[in-house]
């Protein structure tokens, strides 16, 4: 027997002895806990199979697929404007943000650029979807950890943004407003003033929540130091958005490689990061991002140029042959569409890279060794939308 296998055997024996001792001390035995498919903390139908030793999680394996709709197959028989309706349903809380990278990728293949006014309105609506999406997180995460009040405040103030999205696009949740070459419509009368007012309310809401939830001692003790994801692990799993920035990675696609068609360089704003990589860091970064998004919207509202909202594009959209990938910083993280076109009415293949899919794949790593109540903290703070995992 070689030295390495000796050492391995000793390690294995020690590990088993350790397990036995835990079991003897507390008279517990391994247990499998099925969370979901329907569980309040899973935002839909995600199932988590956790193996427990007492209160401690030995392994946690997410089981997605209860809502898999096969979008990558469905888009192969739909025209580009029809696909726009489908992709709205991926991340259903920030629907407009789902449309943008898809439309931008198609525009890139066609060589079309939206007029400046359309680019401005696109960016504003993109940020409004971010606010609508993340403010729900801020309320709901409090709810999951036992802070009922935050939930009511978030749902109340989220309405202001949803009303503005509805006023501009006609849809509260599924706007289907973006078009190849521009937007469906111009803004309604009085929308800019109303939006300013809504953003002011949102900024007040952020301050309120800062005191009420993030500054709360119980909330902090439930989230600080829980579910720490180090920087290199986060990168290796392909985490993105606030989950990555909370691990200290200063990277935001809006600032660092903003695709043409969005005008983030026209506003003065800041990317927030947190060094800790724990549940608290992720919440804190999201709160700052909501505030920052409201400030971006307010600045862009004042500088919207005049002009048309639609470029000249053919009535029947045929995308030239080629491949293109466009990725944007969506509310949940980096979302991209890889379009392969053969010059037809329908794409040949579309690969949808959704943020939550990567974000939730880190759960087996981060949940190992956590306690059961902390599992709720961790799942909530990674913030996933089921449609964004299952597609």
């Amino acid at each position, binding site marked *: 027997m070689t030295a390495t296998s000796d050492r391995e055997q000793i390690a294995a024996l020690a590990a088993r002895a350790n397990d036995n001792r835990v079991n003897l001390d507390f008279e517990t035995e391994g247990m499998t806990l099925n969370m979901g498919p329907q569980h309040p903390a899973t935002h839909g139908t995600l199932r988590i199979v956790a193996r427990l030793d007492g209160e401690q999680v030995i392994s946690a394996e997410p089981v*997605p*697929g209860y809502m*898999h709709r*096969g979008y*990558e*197959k*469905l888009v*192969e*028989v*739909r*025209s580009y404007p*029809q696909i726009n309706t489908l992709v709205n349903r991926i991340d259903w809380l920030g629907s407009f943000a789902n449309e943008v990278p898809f439309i931008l990728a198609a525009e*890139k293949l066609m060589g079309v650029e939206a007029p400046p006014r359309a680019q401005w309105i696109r960016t504003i609506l993109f940020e409004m979807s971010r606010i609508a999406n993340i403010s729900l997180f801020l309320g709901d995460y409090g709810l999951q950890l036992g802070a009922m009040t935050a939930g009511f405040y978030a749902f109340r103030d989220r309405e202001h943004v949803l009303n503005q999205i509805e006023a501009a696009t006609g849809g509260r949740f599924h706007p289907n407003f973006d078009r190849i070459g521009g937007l469906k419509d111009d803004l309604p009368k009085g929308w800019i003033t109303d939006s300013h007012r809504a953003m002011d309310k949102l900024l007040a809401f952020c301050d309120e929540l800062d005191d009420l939830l993030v500054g709360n001692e119980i909330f902090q003790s439930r989230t600080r130091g829980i579910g720490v994801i180090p920087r*290199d*692990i986060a*990168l*290796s*799993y*392909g*985490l993105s958005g606030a989950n990555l920035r909370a691990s200290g*990675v200063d*990277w935001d696609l809006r600032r*660092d*490689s903003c695709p043409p068609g969005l005008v983030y360089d026209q506003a003065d704003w800041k990317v927030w990061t947190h060094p800790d990589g724990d549940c608290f860091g992720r919440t804190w970064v999201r709160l700052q991002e909501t505030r920052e998004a409201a400030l971006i919207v307010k600045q862009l509202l004042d500088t919207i140029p005049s002009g048309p909202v639609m470029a*000249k594009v*053919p*009535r029947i959209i045929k995308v030239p042959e*080629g*491949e*293109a*990938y466009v*990725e944007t910083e969506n509310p949940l993280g*980096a979302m*991209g569409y*890889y379009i*392969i076109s*053969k010059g*037809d*009415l*329908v794409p*040949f*293949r579309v*690969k949808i*890279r959704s943020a939550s*899919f*990567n974000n939730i*794949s*880190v759960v087996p*790593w981060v949940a190992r060794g956590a306690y059961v109540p902390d599992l709720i903290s961790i799942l909530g703070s990674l913030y996933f939308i089921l449609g964004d995992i*299952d597609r």
Partner: protein
Amino acid sequence: MSQLSSADTTTETPAEEATEVEIDERRQAVLDELTARLGDAVVGSHIRPGDDLWVRVERAAWPEAAQVAKALGYTWFDFLSGIDWLPSPFGRDMDAQVDLQVSGAPVKEPAPLVQGYAGGDTRFQVFARLYSIAAGMGIHFKADLPDDELSIGTWSRTYFGADWHERETAEMFGFHFEGHPHLVKLYLPADFQGFPLRKDFPLLARRVRPWPGIVDVEPMPGGDESEGEGE
């Protein structure tokens, strides 16, 4: 007036070209570095200036390509998936096949099998994207999979995130990833037969049900056909 506009273009054009060439050089440098480290394993490449880089590697060098890219600073894992280049035997129509048969539409000849950027020799390809946050650039990797051996080395040791992506690709295309720790179905039920994202897997809903799109076609409001058809 015309003089002025021509003067404008002459001053602008060199500046635009300069930036484009500069960005192109950055991607060329990455490609050269990859070629130097991987040697003959790099069998194809494509650069779209200022936008993206595609690299096709030998199947045997697929795991090594990930390690080399990671050493070059491409630490952020974006996605991994597969492509089936077979032109669909069911056509690429939006209309249901049943409608086409009833209306007596001629049977379309399938288009020839043509691979995309960075070329290819086989029907199936694996493709993935890695990103360097420091450089602000991404690389698309592709690799050919021969029909008789749909198997390739895993990336999940280099990039943990590739674990789930490979499981999804395996169930959707029927590929095997050698060395993957837990290659079971991710979305589909465990007893599901077939590989849905292959082109010869029919989308049954579209085969058997009349598609409403073909029935209620009404003219677009406002303007005649010539107005919308502009370039």
